[in-house]
């Protein structure tokens, strides 16, 4: 009982303390500053675009992992989970090595097109996709696994191709898991700090997202950082509410 109570307090007290120490008078001012609005807008836009890419690329990958038996499936699944356990700052360094101006992919890309990812909003999206992809893939793979594959058989006997079956049967049946994975990945993307700041720096209006803004603001203005953090807390609670059927209420 006591450890359980301690654990609960440990999780709860910081959040309550944060809300309690918020300067409500100054809050509207903090949230409507140009830097805050820019960062919030950039965070929402990049996270949403990133999650769209995660779905586009992650859904087929999840299906492959869940439904197709091939050599190296275990290795591929392990690879997918790497960003989950990798320190985000290391992810940033790794992305730098690949997509930086002198990186393995980045250097030829710069030569041919004149485009480089680092220090741009595209770079922010790239970092988000890298760290969020595992959440999306793993959640959807789980949902696909729990969906009865005999429905796929039924679709095949009715003449459906793999693609039709995937689109009209497999994904709709796994939809709750797909939604959960999407929301989870989006929330992870919104909170992404380490990879983003390492890969893209912290340029207001271009690569400064909410978490990086909170980090720099806190060094100068604790109250403003609190107000910004409160917004992120509200988003997190929103995510929990969106997923309540998925997590809460199930024993």
């Amino acid at each position: 009982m006591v450890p359980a109570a301690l654990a609960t307090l440990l999780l709860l007290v910081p959040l309550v303390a944060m809300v309690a120490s918020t300067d409500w008078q100054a809050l509207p001012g903090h949230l409507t500053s140009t830097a805050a609005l820019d960062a919030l807008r950039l965070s929402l836009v990049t996270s949403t675009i990133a999650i769209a890419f995660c779905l586009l690329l992650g859904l087929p990958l999840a299906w492959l992992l869940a439904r197709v038996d091939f050599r190296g499936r275990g290795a591929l699944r392990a690879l997918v989970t790497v960003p989950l356990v990798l320190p985000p700052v290391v992810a940033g360094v790794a992305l730098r090595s690949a997509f930086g101006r002198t990186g393995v992919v980045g250097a030829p890309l710069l030569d041919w097109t004149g485009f480089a990812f680092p220090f741009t909003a595209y770079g922010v999206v790239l970092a988000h996709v890298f760290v969020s992809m595992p959440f999306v893939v793993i959640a959807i793979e789980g949902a696909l696994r729990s969906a009865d594959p005999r429905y796929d058989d039924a679709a095949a006997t009715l003449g459906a191709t793999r693609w039709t079956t995937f689109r009209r049967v497999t994904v709709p049946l796994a939809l709750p898991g797909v939604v959960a994975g999407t929301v989870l990945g989006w929330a992870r993307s919104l909170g992404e700090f380490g990879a983003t700041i390492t890969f893209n720096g912290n340029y207001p209006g271009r690569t400064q997202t909410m978490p990086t803004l909170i980090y720099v603001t806190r060094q100068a203005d604790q109250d403003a950082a609190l107000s910004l953090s409160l917004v992120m807390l509200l988003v997190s609670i929103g995510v929990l509410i969106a997923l309540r059927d998925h997590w809460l209420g199930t024993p």
Partner: protein
Amino acid sequence: MTARLEADLRVADRVDAGFTVEPGEVLAVIGPNGAGKSTLLHALAGLVDVEGHALLGGTDLLGLPVRERRVGLVFQGQLLFPHLTALDNVAFGLRSRGESRPAAEAVARDWLERFGIADLAGRKPRELSGGQAQRVAIARALATDPDVLLLDEPFTGLDVSVQMALRIELGRHLRDFPGIALLVTHDAIDALTLADRVLVLDEGRVAQVGPPAEVAAEPRTSHVARLVGLNLVADGEDLMAFTPDAVVVSLAEPEGSTRLRWHGQIGTLAPHGDAVRLLVHASPDLLADVTPAAATELGLVPGREVWLSAKATAVSRYGARPGGR
């Protein structure tokens, strides 16, 4: 296209069965649980690995991908797509084969109409009763106009009254169906009322094939004998089949042929029509029908040792192996 089906299917450790079915024919597949009945259907549909061939008008079905086989499978437990309406479920096959939505829905609506459930077109499977869902499942398979229709225990899990109604309905659709139909069932009534021929599967192998009346009269497996309510006794190279009401029960050893008398303990007694049906643990287990009066008079209770005998004239005697097989 209507052509005969010549199949020889081998599924590792499960099925090793050869058979032919004529166009328009309904072949019932019966056998005990685990005999490989469902596996046989799934092999024809392409859902399990199988060796051998299944020639239909010169084409080997086993060489085609599942979706090109033109085989309609009605799954055990229906497997209607839970997120689609009844109409969309029935239209699914045609849509998958490239029909436009209006064309597919028109055909689907027609099929629902034929099954008398057009008013349920907009319902999701969870809003359908067992009988309704089964009708949708059969309509879904038939809507794609398959060459081969496979029905896997279509009446299992339904109320008895629903089973009767659906059986009559299915019989009508099977008569109109020009292709080949295979019906897996564990109910003798299905085999007797719906099938043109019966294939008895035992441990994955074909134990017997023939018209329902012949299989029912001269069963070659104890499973079928039990299904049709016959006693079946092996006697050398021969089998002897006789009805329970042809069995005489006595407390003392009867006279007559030793081949036609058995001794054993009563296992159970249960009312059966006007009679009382005894299950006697002789070798093998035998059924005997006696009048309630006789049961009382003889003091027949479970555990009681009794003698059973049958008149030679009431016993049908036939070879254990059909000619050649």
